[in-house]
């Protein structure tokens, strides 16, 4: 087995592009679900409208990169309003049903044959990231040392991505220790009690939905820019469910929970993949071939998550005392 490759891909995964954009999506989920108690199962739609907002503005309309970013952000806000106005007055589980349906509608519209001229059908859109790489301050070459090195494009994406993650964490940190965050957490516990204390619960839920959606949509930008393309099926329901897994793994309602959760999630996936593939190639494992490794690693990760929920339900950063209250 090639341990150097396995270790290098694993370490790269810890800070890689996947980790970044899933961390951003998960920070959004953490605001929705962890702090406000909103079961938003349509997070992938926020990433999709942002990614496609940028892609379509630049490639189809021929407008500059920053206009595309503006369109993407605006679409995320509009999507939050569109989702929230009819559903936020209802009980939490209705929001879950509506958001998962809305996310599928968004994905199917981007995928549809009717709008192929605009959204590019199942192939998606490409060729909109030039404006981003034109701003790259790193000259062409390889950065890093030994096996831990990136080319200038990946480095630029990672620098911007981690800066966005840091900024999002800072915003979440500041907000959640403020009275604004206190109202959110109180809504999670019991919204009628909050109403009885003179707070406009609907407005706060809407603000939470917009904030989490906008932070999540940054993940859509990072994906689109890193791969210089967007495809509809990237933004399917499993993206949302991975993000939920990451939030629970890291510990819900914790500032750094989603970031660490995302790192652990991708490290585990890549490591298991590397070790299994290596073992299959060198003949240590004979009961499956290399194409079965991919699905099998998800199976193992799922098993790991079940064990985590049984033995450490609060996640990495969670507070055991809080969990004890729920158990009553």
């Amino acid at each position, binding site marked *: 087995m090639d341990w150097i490759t396995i270790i290098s891909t694993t370490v790269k995964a810890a800070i890689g592009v996947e980790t970044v954009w899933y961390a951003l999506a998960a920070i959004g989920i953490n605001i929705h679900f962890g702090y406000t108690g909103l079961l938003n199962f349509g997070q992938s739609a926020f990433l999709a409208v942002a990614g496609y907002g940028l892609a379509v503005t630049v490639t189809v309309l021929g407008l500059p990169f920053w206009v595309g970013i503006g369109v993407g952000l605006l679409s995320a806000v509009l999507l939050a309003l569109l989702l929230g106005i009819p559903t936020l007055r209802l009980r939490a589980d209705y929001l879950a049903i509506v958001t998962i349906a809305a996310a599928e509608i968004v994905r199917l519209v981007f995928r549809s044959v009717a709008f192929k001229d605009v959204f590019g059908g199942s192939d998606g859109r490409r060729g909109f990231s030039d404006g981003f790489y034109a701003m790259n301050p790193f000259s062409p070459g390889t950065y890093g040392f030994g096996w831990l090195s990136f080319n200038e494009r990946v480095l630029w994406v990672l620098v911007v991505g981690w800066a966005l993650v840091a900024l999002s964490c800072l*915003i979440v940190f*500041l*907000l959640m220790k*403020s*009275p*604004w*965050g*206190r*109202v959110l*957490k*109180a809504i*999670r*516990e*019991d919204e*009628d*009690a*909050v*109403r*009885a*204390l*003179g*707070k*406009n*619960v609907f407005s706060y839920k809407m*603000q939470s939905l917009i*904030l989490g959606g906008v932070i999540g949509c940054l993940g859509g930008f990072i994906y689109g820019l890193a791969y210089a393309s967007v495809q509809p099926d990237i933004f399917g329901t499993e993206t949302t469910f991975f993000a939920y897994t990451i939030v629970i793994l890291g510990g819900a309602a914790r500032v750094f929970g989603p970031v660490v959760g995302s790192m652990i999630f991708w490290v585990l996936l890549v490591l298991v993949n590397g070790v299994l593939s290596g073992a299959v190639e060198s003949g240590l494992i004979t009961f499956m071939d290399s194409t079965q490794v991919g699905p099998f690693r998800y199976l193992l990760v799922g098993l790991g998550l079940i064990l985590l929920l049984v033995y450490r339900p609060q996640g990495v950063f969670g507070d055991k*005392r*809080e969990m004890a*209250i*729920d158990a*009553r």
Partner: protein
Amino acid sequence: MHAETTATERKAAALAAFKDLARDPGVPKPDPILVVDNVVRRFGGLTAVEVEHVEVQRGSITALIGPNGAGKTTFFNQLTGFDTADSGQWTFNGRSMNGVPAHKVARAGMVRTFQLTKALSKLTVLENMRLGAQGQKGESFWRALLPAFWKGQEDAITERADELLTRFKLDAKRGDFAGSLSGGQRKLLEMARALMVEPELVMLDEPMAGVNPALTQSLLGHVKDLREQGMTVLFVEHDMDMVRDISDWVIVMAQGHVIAEGPPETIMSDERVIDAYLGAHHDAPLSESELEEQLHEAEAALEAEIEEETQK
């Protein structure tokens, strides 16, 4: 000493206001803070609430009693905006309140608690209290990002919260999760939190439900305290001892209607109230043999009467 004199004064003032009032449902009060007219709420075919007219006197403790299913809590929900009435209107301090959403009702100074206590479990006791304060600058999104905007106000709120916690003997628990409190302590916390709103009218939905007798006395004291501080209290309660002990006036509901009003000392001997609680035929015979016994008695009495007549 001064506190005691005002205490008795407030109680006396409240009682004086009720002194010459008729015992009819919907009787007008000298200085009503809450006036309700024709509030109706139907759930399908069931009319849960149908209150024609009722007034709540300012500065008093008014009890709302009635058998199970009388519509007391539903009536509370209508008044506080947690449920929409099918028709009717009500004014609080002269301001029309029908159709006003719950959070605006609370801001107007009409704050309620719940029958099933709603402590915010995963917030600390102190955070529960701070949440009650109104007009917080740090509750707006953009200002929340800069602590400088709200730090001063937060300190003032914390000071007020600590005072209330000390009064309610919860100061030792201020850093604990509200979810770790006992049932009675949660009731105390909910009441204290409601006071953070600085209400004029406090509406307590069964404040004594599930509270152990030792704590009941302290809760009773706190409710009386509210009146002493110039607040008006309207509360739903089943425990008649408590109603007699603290209320100045009692409103009785049954099957959605207000059926009687009166002072707590006499209300339970009111015919209409006894009928509502025990049924109109509560002194009717329960069994065949009892019925026969009563018939025999009646017959005997008749015969005696007839005999008397014939002997004349």
